[in-house]
């Protein structure tokens, strides 16, 4: 019996041990990921967390181009800020079309997007991602938290600056949301993470918030040009203020042009200057010795990699007959190019919208020996003198009248005088300005656009877009090159080094000029003209393009020429009497018709994504979506 008692005891204790233990084993921790308390226990940890507040701007996710996207529900390569922002700001305008068929992407140029569009949703959540990360950082960087963790002295002072910069990035993203969505959700660092549902803020109230934040931050961040490259300083704060003031009427109904002048002037006076060569603005080493950039998103082919940002702008713009190595990359993606509207803004001689003359170009150089209408000459201010801008192929050309062979001109002896039925003229191809003097029957040709900002590529089909899906329809843009200013390639043939300026001096000049024209006080026409001429002098290489006066509409064109593909166009078109949605200004395939047509005016605002409306009952959709 003793033996049995022993066995009973053994059995029961065996059972007891197995039953009783192990519950606490349910508390497990990840091996490599760590808690907030571990991250923020040193100044170094703060800086790495701070790097994410900025990095949320540049990268799709935490592992660069190799997956790990911050934003779910969209391909990681599409999900970085600038690519999404660019899609929303450029694709529904005259500056860009895209040939790809990724769900929701063609909707931009067609201007028929819905609240379920994956790109719009991802952009909204990307902005909020940076806001949320910034909110988290700001809470962690509170003085109480910093001192609690024993960080003092210079380290603590640095963290104060970090915090101010995080507030700036948050304000920037709220400004983006204000511009794109009007009345987004709104939440700051005041509520603990996830503790309350964001409210919806009106566009005007959001304007006040952003303005107030920026003015508070103004004195907390570093003086202009004194911070580390890539970080925010006072000039960035002023630049954003200038930008939102310029658009204040759209946001609030009230002009703030005087303030726009005040703050753009502050930046202009802060010691920045234009990079001498416009064609080197978007190059692999544009982070080095660049006096023009105020604040940038930093990319790097080795360490800050993604499939968006300037990697996207460089690769996607290359296709057709463009040679990838000319852009320092290993291959083009054949996606984005521009419409003739942008090209035409460089056609200074073209009088207005222009009525074509009876003269036209034909020949193998324009791929037309008679089957299709001629490339027309346009009248100039001098009677009988006509001009044509044409991107010649290598080949022959002639001038023909009335789209008919009965009257045609060639050049016997290549002496620049025209003979009826004369010999073919020859060209090796390229952008050519052809001036025809019908009075004297002479002609002249000059190569290229005189404005160096016109960085186009003709893929043989010309600038007309018959088929958005065909990359070769429409002009390519060659502004972005993964090549350094000395001609050597960037650090990687796939991932691009070019940094993307969020603010650069040229924009401040144009804000100043526009605000003056719009009636702001505190500036002068003379200054405005001098600023425009600075841009033009750089563009032309001399003062041949300088102006003595300008109109408001000239500013819109100047902005297009100077800032195209940098993410401004939609905002600009809306500010200029809503050229964005109305039929007063159209471009190829606006509203999904080839000639272009107006669309519903409510498309000036993007819809709040259905996902957030579903998740947050505080939100109301923008009208008509």
């Amino acid at each position: 019996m003793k033996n049995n008692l022993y066995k009973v005891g053994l059995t029961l204790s065996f059972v007891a041990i197995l039953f009783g233990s192990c519950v606490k084993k349910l508390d497990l921790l990840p091996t490599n990921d760590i808690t907030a308390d571990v991250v923020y226990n040193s100044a170094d940890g703060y800086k790495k967390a701070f790097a994410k507040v900025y990095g949320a701007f540049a990268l799709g996710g935490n592992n660069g181009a190799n997956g790990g996207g911050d934003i779910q529900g969209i391909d990681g390569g599409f999900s970085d800020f600038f690519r999404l922002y660019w899609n929303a700001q450029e694709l529904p305008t005259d500056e860009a079309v895209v040939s790809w068929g990724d769900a929701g992407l063609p909707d931009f140029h067609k201007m028929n997007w819905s609240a379920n569009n994956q790109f719009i949703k991802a952009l909204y959540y990307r902005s909020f991602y940076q806001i949320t990360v910034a909110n988290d950082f700001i809470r962690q960087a509170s003085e109480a938290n910093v001192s609690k963790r024993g960080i003092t002295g210079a380290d603590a002072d640095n963290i104060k600056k970090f915090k101010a910069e995080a507030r700036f990035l948050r304000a920037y993203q709220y400004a983006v949301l204000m511009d794109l969505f009007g009345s987004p959700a709104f939440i700051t660092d005041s509520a603990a993470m996830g503790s309350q549902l964001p409210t919806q803020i009106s566009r005007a109230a959001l304007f006040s918030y952003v303005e107030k934040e920026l003015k508070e931050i103004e004195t907390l961040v570093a003086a202009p040009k004194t911070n580390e490259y890539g970080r925010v300083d006072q000039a960035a704060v002023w630049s954003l203020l200038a930008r939102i003031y310029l658009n204040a009427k759209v946001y609030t109904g009230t002009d703030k042009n005087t303030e726009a002048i005040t703050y753009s002037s502050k930046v202009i006076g802060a010691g920045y200057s234009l990079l001498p060569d416009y064609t080197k603005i978007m190059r692999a080493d544009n982070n080095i010795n660049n006096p023009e950039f105020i604040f940038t998103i930093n990319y790097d082919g080795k360490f800050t990699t993604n499939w968006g940002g300037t990697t996207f702008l460089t690769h996607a713009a290359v296709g057709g007959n463009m040679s990838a190595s000319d852009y320092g990359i290993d291959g083009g993606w054949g996606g984005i190019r521009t419409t003739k509207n942008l090209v035409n803004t460089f056609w200074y001689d073209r009088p207005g919208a222009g009525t074509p003359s009876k003269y036209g170009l034909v020949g193998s150089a324009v791929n037309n020996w008679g089957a299709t209408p001629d490339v027309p000459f346009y009248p100039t201010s001098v009677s009988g003198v006509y001009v044509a801008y044409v991107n010649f192929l290598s080949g022959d050309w002639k001038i023909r009248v009335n789209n008919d062979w009965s009257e045609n001109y060639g050049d016997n002896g290549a002496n620049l005088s025209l003979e009826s039925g004369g010999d073919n003229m020859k060209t090796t191809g390229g952008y050519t300005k052809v001036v025809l003097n019908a009075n004297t029957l002479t002609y002249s040709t000059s190569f290229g656009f005189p404005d160096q900002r016109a960085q186009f590529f003709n893929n043989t089909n010309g600038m007309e877009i018959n088929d958005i899906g065909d990359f070769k329809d429409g002009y390519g843009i060659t502004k972005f090159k993964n090549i350094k200013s000395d001609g050597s390639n960037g650090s990687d043939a796939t991932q691009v080094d070019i940094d993307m300026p969020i603010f650069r001096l040229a924009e401040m000049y144009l804000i100043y000029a526009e605000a003056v024209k719009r009636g702001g006080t505190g500036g002068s026409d003379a200054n405005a003209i001098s600023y425009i001429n600075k841009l033009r002098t750089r563009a032309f290489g001399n003062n041949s393009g300088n102006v003595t006066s300008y109109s408001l509409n000239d500013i819109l064109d100047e902005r297009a020429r100077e800032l195209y593909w940098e993410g401004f166009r939609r905002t600009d078109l809306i500010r200029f009497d809503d050229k964005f949605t109305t039929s007063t200004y159209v471009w190829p395939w606006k509203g999904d018709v080839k000639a272009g047509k107006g669309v519903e005016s409510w498309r000036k605002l993007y819809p709040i994504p259905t996902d957030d409306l579903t998740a947050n009952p505080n939100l109301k959709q923008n009208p008509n979506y």
Partner: protein
Amino acid sequence: MNMKKTLVALLLAVICLPSFAQDRTVTGKVTDAKDGSPLVAASVVVKGTKKGVSTSADGTFTLKVSSSDNTVIVSFLNYATKEVSIKGQSAINVALTQNADQLGDVVVIGYGSVRKKDLTGSVANVSSKDFVQGQLTSPEQLIAGKVAGVQITSNGGAPGSGSTIRIRGGASLNASNDPLIVIDNVPLSNNGISGVANPLSLINPNDIETFTVLKDASASAIYGSRASNGVIIITTKKGAKGATKYNFSSQVSVGKVTKYVDVLSAEDFTVLVYLNGTKAQNALRGTSNTDWQKQIFQDAVTSENNFSAAGSIKSMPFRFSAATLSQEGTLKTGKLDRTTLGLNLSPKFFNNSLKIDLNAKTSFSRSRFADQGAIGNAVTFDPTKPVYSTNPTAFGGYFEWLDAGSTTGLAGLAPKNPVGLLMQKNDVSNVNRTIANADVDYTLPFFKDLRVHANVGIDVSNGSGTIFIPGTAASTYKRYNGVGGVNNEYKQENSNLLAETYLNYSKYVDNIQSKFDVIAGYAYQDFQSKNYNYSDRTAWGPVVTSPNFLYDIPENNLVSYYGRFNYSLKGRYSLTASVRQDGSSRFNSANRFATFPSFAAAWNIAEESFLKQSKLISTLKLRFGYGVTGQQDGIGNYDYLSYYALSGQQGKYQFGNTFYNMYAPGGYYGGRKWEQTATTNLGLDFGFFNNRVTGNLDVYDKLTTDLLNLVGQPAGTNFSNQIIANVGDMENKGAELGLNVQVIAKPKFTWDLGFNITYNENKITKLTISPDPNYPGNKFGGISGGVGNTILINSVGYNRGSFFVFQQVYDDNGRPIENLFVDRNKDGIINDKDQYQYQSVDPKIFLGFTSNMTYKKWDAGFVLRANFGNYMYNNVYSTLSNYRAVASLATHLSNISTNYNNTNFKEGGVNQLMSDYFIQNASFLRMDNIHVGFNAGKVFKEKANLRINASIQNAFIITNYKGLDPEISGGIDNNFYPRPRVFALGLNFDF
């Protein structure tokens, strides 16, 4: 041992009935004829009287009889009753043979087994004699088409590729829909193993004795949190007492690809480009005639050898098995070599009161994975181009599309030569997996109704591999600093631990004719992996990236308490109730535990007196069950809290001249808890004509609530905009019918038919916290043709996995009009608001039909399977039915589908891609398997028995589906590895 004697005496006192005159004593022992083990509580009754005793714990009995008593009847549950003469004998030894018919009548149900007639749940049992024949390399294929409600879809034709198993449609959306698989009482983890296509393929199918499928929750709820998608219990073969029996079998097979994607021939392609192409496109055209798909596929030989020995060493039963498999892929360069070893020991001690069952299964596999990207490239590669270029050194001598303007010299986005992809990639892995457990069952000597059962199991696997691509290969040419190729390695170690113990009280109370069976137990399971991170290296030199951390150890564990109560009265009325409480490390401590109850009852109508004499009805049982099960697979291990992750080497941010790693806070969801599925099941088991015709009919309703569902987060409240939360409800309703008919049952001629049919209806009833008519649902199912495009959606009111498409407009001749769709919401524009839910991936009805015939020494059979109402997105057609696909970029040409002749589309485009025109009915009837066998009888001087068999797998398929194969798990037909037709021949020796 006093206690024991007391108990025996008590038992005798109870059982021995008031006695007649007794003038002599007969003693004896009752044993199992098979292994000689004593049978406890067998009854020994004098024929024609009520005199009798039960055998004691060592199988012995002592019976007083009168002189006129000549015969005793010895009986034991599930054993053939024997009459033994006692005339002139005082001691008899009786060996009872287990009743073959009754053998299958004991069904494993998890933590024990139950007599089939006491079974209350919906449980299907398939034993080895009913397995699908032929060369099957992965165990689940053994029961494909055999069980109503169980759908097994192989994932393609690659060596060792697994299957998607769905029991009654699966209960989850974003969590796993895979059933729990339990091998010899060890529940496996759902984690994959690096270097192996399918973890189950590491189990040797020849070692398996039975599959038991627990389909409804009343049966599976004892497995609680992992049982929502059903449970498959696999029991392996064991040794038996007696002479050692050896078996050797060898099988060889050839797999052939019988169907290719229909693309244009070189000639047709040439004409197409000539007629439609620009001058530049025509200049790209070649003059060769290459059938690229035939270039990448081959006839694949598989050989397999199995050896087993089963018997006993002294009194310890054992079974040992060894097998080798060598399988080539039909896609060139793919190969799997596998060696499996199995050992089972089942010793018994202390008069069988202590039973120990030791199982160890180990496998070594070596695989070379063919680059499956070659399949898609072979479909689209220009047929006018040669396999090899004229330059024998560039790109390994393979023809590639060049672009003088690119920094690499290659056309960046052009497809790479598929033959080059295969030949230039050497992706080799070695995987070792061992599943072992020790199962101890101890009947308490002082209290024989109570058993203590303990089980300790491990499932350990190590996978490692290397990938090498030479620097000359086009696929990775000059990918980093001018150097190309890949020279990488990977490694993973999994170790899953199970420790559990339960108490089992089992008692038959004679005077109330009631059987009680109660268990109470505890289990602890730990699932741990160690994933090593290595540098990404070029073929010979520079490191592209190196990892921040050398390894990661994801881990989760489960703590469980469970109990079950079985009661059966008079063998007619059964009742089961079970409860399990599980705690998971994946949840916040507040939501960590959940309780999963079940209840079931069965009524054996055929045992009632009014049917007992029926010649027609031999079995009739009504079952009803209800139970709740849970799900927690498919979610993160730790993300109920936010953790910060340090960014990788390519994810740094630059301040000044320094690049900083970033600490990113991770998304989290503190309130996450178990997904729960409540299943109600009503079933009827029936048998007619002495069970010549048997079957069962079940109807069920599964309601899943708190679906683990990927839902949008309010912007600004989380670090992730979507997170898996418990939002949503889904319902599966269905009916299953299984029928087995012994058409002919003569000694020399038998013919069995099996038929099963399943109807399942799935509907999502809730997806958002509050109903939102503007929310279309969760999109998923990525397709090729544009990045991030999806074709499937989960929407409220529709079947899970419905296609989300535009409604195509057709011309008078029935041809689709390119990019013309119905403006379904009539707002004048065509955008995603015009997409609609159309059909779904899941079949509405699926069925299996099997036949087995034996005639003298011959046997033959087949397995047919059919699915109805399942639809497929033909991604090959959708991307390759337009001319744009021929020359999408200026650098190269691509082949297109012959379906272009039906569409003549010019551009394609995103809306066209998502047209309902490409959703095709994929109902099918497939002859899975035909086999024939011949028993040649004794060979080798009568020492061995030889059986020869031949089979054809995937013999034919009847379908209207236009693509390669109508049966593709997930419903998207794109770059599918074709299932080969396999011709196998095998020899089997028993000696």
